[in-house]
C-alpha cells in the first residue's frame, strides 16, 4: 500500500456534472460523494442514464463537451484534480489513474499495432527506452493471461477476439501500475466465461498491488462476486451504499430492492419476472424531492422533499424517508416495492 491510511486514494465530494443543452441543464451527476481506499473494490451500480459512467469520466476529466464538472471536488490522494491544470491531469491519467472502457471493440485504435499503443502509454509517463517499454508491455500482457505476448504485440487490434482485446485494454491500464483503476462496464460486451476469468484476474491484481478499483456496472451479479463495497446510483444521485454483503442481502432503499428483485433467476418458472414499475425520470425534468417517488410503492407526502443520506446501520447508508426494515432480499422480492 502506498498511501497513509488516513488519506483515501480517491475522495469525491459533492460532485456535480452538468451538460448544458438547448432545453436546459442536464444534471447527470448531482451531488455524489464517496471514497475509495487503496486495495478496495467499489462497485458502482445503476441503470442506463443513472450517471454512473459520467461519474467515472468526471473523475478523469474526460467528459465530452459541453459536459463539465460544475461543482464539488475530486481529491486524488488529497490533491484536488478538478481544479488541476490540464498538464497535471495528463500526468495522472494512465499513470496514477487508469480507465478501462466498456466496448473492447472500440477502445483500441484500429490502425495502430498493439505494441505502438502499449509502448506509447509507457513512454508518455516514463523516460525509458523503447525496448524497456516493450519489455514492460510483454510482461503486463502475460500478467493478464495473453499467451505468446511477444508475437501478439505485433498484431493489430482486429486480429484479436473481443475478450482478448479487453485483456489488452486492461493490460494498458495496468502498464504504469496505477493507484486507481476506473472500469466502466468492461465485461458487459463479453461472454460469461470470459467475464468470469477477467473478474477473477482483476480481483487478484488489486489484492496483490493494492490498487483501488471502481467497477461501474449495471450487473448486480458482477458486483456480488467482485466488490467490497457497493454504491447504487439513481438519476444522478447515490441512493444506497454499504458493504456488498449488506446492500445485496439486506437492501433498505426501495430502488435497490427493486433492482435486486429484477435479477432473473429468483423467480419460479412460469411466474412473471419482476420489474420496477414506470421509467426513470427524464433528466431535464427531475421531480422535486425523492427522484424515485413516482415508481415507489411507499411514497407519500414526505417524499416531496429530497431525503438526505442516513446511516441505517454501521457503514450502510440510504437516501430514503421510508427505508425498508432490514430483512433478507429473497423475502422482499416477493412483495417487492409495490
Amino acid at each position, binding site marked *: 500500500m502506498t498511501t497513509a491510511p488516513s488519506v483515501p486514494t480517491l475522495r469525491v465530494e459533492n460532485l456535480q456534472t452538468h451538460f448544458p443543452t438547448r432545453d436546459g441543464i442536464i444534471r447527470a451527476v448531482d451531488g455524489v460523494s464517496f471514497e475509495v481506499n487503496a486495495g478496495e473494490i467499489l462497485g458502482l451500480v445503476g441503470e442506463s442514464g443513472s450517471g454512473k459512467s459520467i461519474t467515472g469520466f468526471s473523475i*478523469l476529466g*474526460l467528459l*465530452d463537451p459541453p459536459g463539465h464538472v460544475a461543482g464539488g471536488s475530486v481529491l486524488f490522494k488529497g490533491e484536488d484534480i478538478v481544479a488541476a491544470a490540464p498538464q497535471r491531469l*495528463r*500526468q*495522472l*491519467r*494512465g*499513470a496514477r489513474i*487508469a*480507465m478501462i*472502457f*466498456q*466496448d473492447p471493440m*472500440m*477502445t*483500441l*485504435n*484500429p*490502425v*495502430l*499495432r498493439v505494441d505502438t499503443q502499449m509502448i*506509447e*502509454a509507457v513512454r*508518455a*509517463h516514463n523516460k525509458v527506452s523503447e525496448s524497456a517499454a516493450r519489455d514492460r508491455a510483454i510482461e503486463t500482457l502475460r500478467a493478464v493471461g495473453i499467451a505468446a505476448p511477444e508475437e501478439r504485440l505485433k498484431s*493489430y487490434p*482486429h486480429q484479436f477476439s473481443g475478450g482478448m482485446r479487453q485483456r489488452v*485494454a486492461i493490460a*494498458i491500464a495496468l502498464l504504469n501500475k496505477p493507484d486507481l483503476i476506473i472500469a466502466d462496464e468492461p465485461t458487459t460486451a463479453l461472454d460469461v466465461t470470459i467475464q468470469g476469468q477477467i473478474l477473477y484476474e482483476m480481483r487478484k491484481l488489486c489484492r496483490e498491488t493494492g490498487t483501488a478499483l471502481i467497477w461501474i456496472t449495471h450487473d448486480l451479479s458482477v458486483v456480488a462476486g467482485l466488490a467490497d463495497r457497493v454504491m447504487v446510483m439513481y438519476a444522478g444521485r447515490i441512493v444506497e451504499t454499504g458493504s456488498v454483503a449488506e446492500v445485496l442481502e439486506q437492501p433498505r432503499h426501495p430502488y435497490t430492492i427493486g433492482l435486486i428483485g429484477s435479477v432473473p433467476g429468483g423467480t419460479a418458472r412460469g411466474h412473471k419476472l419482476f420489474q420496477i414499475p414506470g421509467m426513470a425520470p427524464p433528466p431535464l425534468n427531475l421531480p422535486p424531492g425523492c427522484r424515485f417517488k413516482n415508481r415507489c410503492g411507499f411514497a407519500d407526502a414526505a417524499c416531496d422533499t429530497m431525503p438526505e443520506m442516513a446511516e441505517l446501520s454501521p457503514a450502510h447508508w440510504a437516501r430514503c424517508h421510508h427505508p425498508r426494515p432490514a430483512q433478507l432480499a429473497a423475502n422482499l422480492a416477493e412483495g417487492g416495492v409495490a
Partner: protein
Amino acid sequence: MLVFIIRRLLQSALVVAVMSVLVFVGIYLIGDPLAILASPEASEIDREEIARALGLDRPLWEQYMTFIGSAFVGEFGKSFVFGQPAMGLILERMPATLELAITATLMAFFIGVPLGVYAGLRHESAGAQAIMAGSILGFSLPNFWVGLMLIMIFAVQLGWMPASGRGPTTEVFGLQLSIFSAKGWHHILLPAITLALSKCALIIRLARATAREVMLMDYVKFARAKGLSERRVIGVHILKNIMVPVATVTGLELGALIAFAVITETIFSWPGMGKLLIDSITQLDRPVIVAYLIVVVFMLVAINLVVDILYSVLDPRVRLGGAQ
C-alpha cells in the same frame, strides 16, 4: 497481391478496348477529318489521295482493325495534323501536365488536411467557421474564372507572376521538368493554385467530416485516458484514421487532374496534354485523341492501384484479396 494487380491490369485492358471503339465511332459521327485537313481549294483527286494516305478511304471497321493490329505492337498511328507518332506527341507533353497536377495535388493536400482537421476538432471556433465558408467559395468558383482572376491580379495588375507558359526545364531522370528552377516555380504557381483551389476545398471538407467522426470514437478517449499528449492524440491517433479516406480521395483527384486539367492548361497556355487534346479535337486528329485516352485510362488505373495499395497500408483491416 500479385493476383490483385494482374486482375486490375486485365480490367483496364478491357476498359481501353471499349473506349477505343467509342472514340472511333464518336469521331466518325462528329465529322470528316478530311474537311479540315485538306484545303478548301484541293481537288477531288487531292482529297482522295490524302484519304488514302491516312487510311480514311476504307470502311470504319477496317480502319479500327488496322488500328488494333498496330496498337498491339505499340504503334498508335501518326497524327493526321503533325504527321508524327501520336503517342510520342503525348508523352512529350506529359511531364508538363504531370508536374502541374502533382504540384496542385500536393498543395491541396498539405493545405487542406491541416485546415480540415483544425475545422473538425474546433468546429465551433470562428476560425473553423471561416475555413468552412472559404471552402464553399473554393468549391463553387469556376476554375476558369479563378484562373483569369489570378492572371488579372498577379500578372496584369501586380506584375509578380508571368501570365502564361512554362518555365525553363531541366532533365531529371529523362523527364523535362520545370519545378527545379525558381523561374519554373514562378510559372507553375498560378495554374497550380487554380487547380488546387477546388481540390483543397474538397479535402478540407472531407478531413473535417472525418475528424469530427473520429474524435468521438472511444479509442480517442482511451488514448487521452492513457495520458498521451494532445499532440500525439491528434497527430497519431486521429490523423492516421483520417488519412484512410483522405488518401483515397486525394489519389482519385490526382487522376482527375492529370486527365482533365484541360481548361486550366488552356487559360495559362501550359504546354501539357490537355491543351494538345483540345487542339486535336478541334482538328479531328483521331490518332492523338485515341492515344491520349489510352494514356489517361492507364494512368487512372495505375493511380487507383496505388491508392488501393496505400489503403491497405493505412488501414490494416483491409486486405487486398485476389480470390473472392
